[in-house]
């Protein structure tokens, strides 16, 4: 270790770190506003037509709620690729249970999601397997189940679910969940503990944080959140097809990164990453669709933007193997 060097280049480094931090904070917000304005202009105001705004909102609910769970996981330095499959399984469970009462259906969806989250947690925490490996495995595994259940014909929910397809209900649920998440993350020890685990798990353990218990809880919570998001998904679609939840995991990941989330988690994450990221992702997505780009071109553009943002926001000092 070289004390001299670290001491002496400190001021410069601090100034640089501050600049990068500022970019990390403001670029996504500025980007969101700029892109929104750009698309309003490009679509001659179509973008903010009420029906399009509602469509936009409709897409955002699921991703924003699921992204919150993944945000907690990524803050601890982990990754989760299984959210799409969790959404799928929970959607199927909700459809099957919906004739027996909506409360039971919601509960079932949450439990199903939490169970898959707990499977992830068990293999990651107790069997010490890297989270991205575990969750890629469960992604394939449960995607298989979804295909099995929904390939021949979509699993249909009872017609009563459409009663809940009301914008104010969906918006209220999303806002409530995100608000509670924000308060707990920002104003209780919970958030600091997660960041501490992400920045240095051993150090966190020696400061008295029950790291294993915490990790188990968070993976399960992330599953449960997506389980609830599945309800909003079914309310909108009325049935679960074999493709339900496809690519949700990548959408979440891109949304968080667009929101300025450092991929290695740790001290520099901000809760706003979730909100700004989800909005940015869908404004971009629907904007590009509206100006008539094909899905293939869309995916290409998504990929390029994703790479650029990862490169800008990577916290190279903290960059290590993701847990």
């Amino acid at each position, binding site marked *: 270790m070289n004390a001299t060097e670290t001491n002496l*280049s400190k001021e410069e480094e601090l100034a640089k770190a501050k600049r990068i931090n500022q970019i990390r904070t403001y670029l996504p917000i500025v980007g969101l506003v700029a892109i929104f304005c750009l698309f309003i202009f490009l679509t001659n105001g179509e973008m903010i037509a009420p029906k399009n705004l509602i469509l936009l909102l409709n897409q955002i609910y699921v991703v924003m709620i699921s992204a919150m769970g993944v945000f907690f996981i990524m803050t601890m330095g982990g990754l989760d690729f299984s959210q799409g499959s969790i959404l799928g399984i929970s959607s199927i469970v909700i459809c099957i249970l919906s004739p027996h009462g909506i409360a039971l259906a919601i509960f079932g969806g949450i439990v199903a999601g939490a169970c898959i989250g707990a499977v992830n947690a068990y293999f990651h925490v107790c069997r010490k397997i890297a989270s991205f490996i575990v969750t890629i495995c469960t992604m394939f595994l449960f995607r298989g189940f979804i295909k099995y259940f929904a390939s021949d014909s979509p699993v249909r929910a009872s017609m009563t679910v459409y009663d809940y397809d009301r914008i104010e209900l969906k918006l209220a649920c999303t806002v409530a969940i995100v608000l509670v998440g924000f308060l707990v993350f920002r104003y209780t020890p919970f958030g600091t503990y997660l960041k501490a685990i992400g920045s240095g798990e051993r150090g966190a353990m020696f400061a008295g944080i029950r790291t294993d218990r915490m990790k188990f809880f968070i993976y399960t919570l992330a599953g449960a959140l997506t389980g609830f998001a599945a309800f909003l998904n079914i309310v909108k679609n009325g049935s679960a097809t074999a493709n339900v939840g496809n690519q949700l995991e990548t959408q979440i990941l891109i949304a968080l990164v667009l929101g300025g989330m450092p991929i290695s988690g740790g001290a520099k994450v901000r809760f706003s990453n979730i909100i700004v990221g989800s909005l940015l992702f869908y404004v971009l997505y629907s904007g590009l669709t509206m100006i008539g780009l094909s899905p293939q071109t869309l995916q290409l553009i998504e990929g390029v933007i994703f790479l650029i943002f990862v490169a800008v926001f990577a916290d190279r*000092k903290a960059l290590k193997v993701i847990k």
Partner: protein
Amino acid sequence: MSEVRLQIQHLSKSFGITKAVRDVSFNVSKGEVHALIGENGSGKSTLTNMLTGIYTIDSGKFILDGKEVHPKNQVEANNEGISIIVQELGTLSGLTVAENIFLGHEERFVKYGIKNTREMNRQANELLKQYDFSHIRAEEQIDEYNFEDRKLIEIIKATYFNPKIVVIDETTTALSQEGREELYKQMNRIREAGNSVIFISHDLAEVLDKSDSITIMRDGSYIDTVRSSDVTEDDLKRLMVGREVSGDYYRTDYGEKVSDEVVLSVDDVSVPGLLHDISFNLHKGEILGFGGLSESGMHEVGKAVFGASYGRTGKVTLADGTEINNISSAINHSIAYTSKDRDNESLILNQSIEDNITLPSLNDLAGPLKSLSDKKLRTFAEKYAKQMSVKMQDVDQFVSDLSGGNKQKVVLARWIGKGSDILVLDSPTRGIDIKVKQDIYQLMNRMRQNNKSIIMISEELMELIGMCDRIIIMKDGAINGELTRSKELNENMLISKMV
């Protein structure tokens, strides 16, 4: 004066606006161990890093045997006859011992583009035999070996090609007594072969004992070069700090009676492979020392008391009968712990000073519904950082930017803030310069007077003798003797129980 091996002429190096090394000139002779000392940040490492090609030179030059050298990287430096052994681990995991020894010099074994691994292993094994490290096998993965053995492998890597100059950068702080002896032996061998050692160390007794001449640096400038035989430790301290070191270093009291009140008792504690049946009591207001070789299990004692050992059996009990079985119960019952592995276990490097200080106290600081107020956290962090006089811009600064001594101050600030009554300090002054060391000793003394109890685990025998009321010596995972504070205690009395 013997022949000159290396001339350092008007060397300067800046990082941005700050000058790390300012116009430094001195000579290193053939066949000498030349110590380079100075406080943290005095420019020692920057200087040697330029010599070994890790940093570029701003101005000035190195003249080795009459020829100017300016290596661009460590391999080039090796080819010029310069090598370095660093403080932390310099070996790469995932490679074999042989691959580590010959790293950067693989071309010696390559024929027609194919590497002859067998020949490489054979030569490495021969070297291991030559150096008397036959318990290490060249074919094995380096990860099979512990810190000490990996250091020995680094010694071979840095010296097997008979370099003219070997830089040893604070290597001894990380080594146990036996590892140090091995290093001293190799230093002697290099010196007797007519080559030179540049020896960087914070341990002044060691510097006086092992070096022929000593160059002192302060704030990037050259201060003086002296013969080791002409100076005392106090002279060196004065030259390093630039003023008289005032106040006491270690404790000066002797014969004070320690309270009989037991605050913590350890009964028949064992940890598989590390500790066997350890029992002892810690009293109120006592500083209890643990000494031994680094593999003696003494570091595990600290972890066991803190509830951080895997598979521990036996009991750790507080005065009120509470049993300590995991880290959070230890912390909640007023036990604090500073690890030997400061960067990974005591701190979270990539977090702010504020986060590091407040982390164990968050639950205490939380209001109704576990809510935290930013202002309260900041005041708390600022108060204890200030109390420990941590040198920083503000508490938002990341801990990774701080020097070793300041990092340790942050660790201590955290536990003082938590108000812990029992402190387990493992190697509290490891790699820390004199001024901060003195601060830590004085703090320990004050805590003792305030009836806090301290377990101090250390590989520095002098600080154990200077600070502790009792010293327990460990050997092979068991207690091998106990010594009581007295003026007559000396290092040999401790060593005789250690080996």
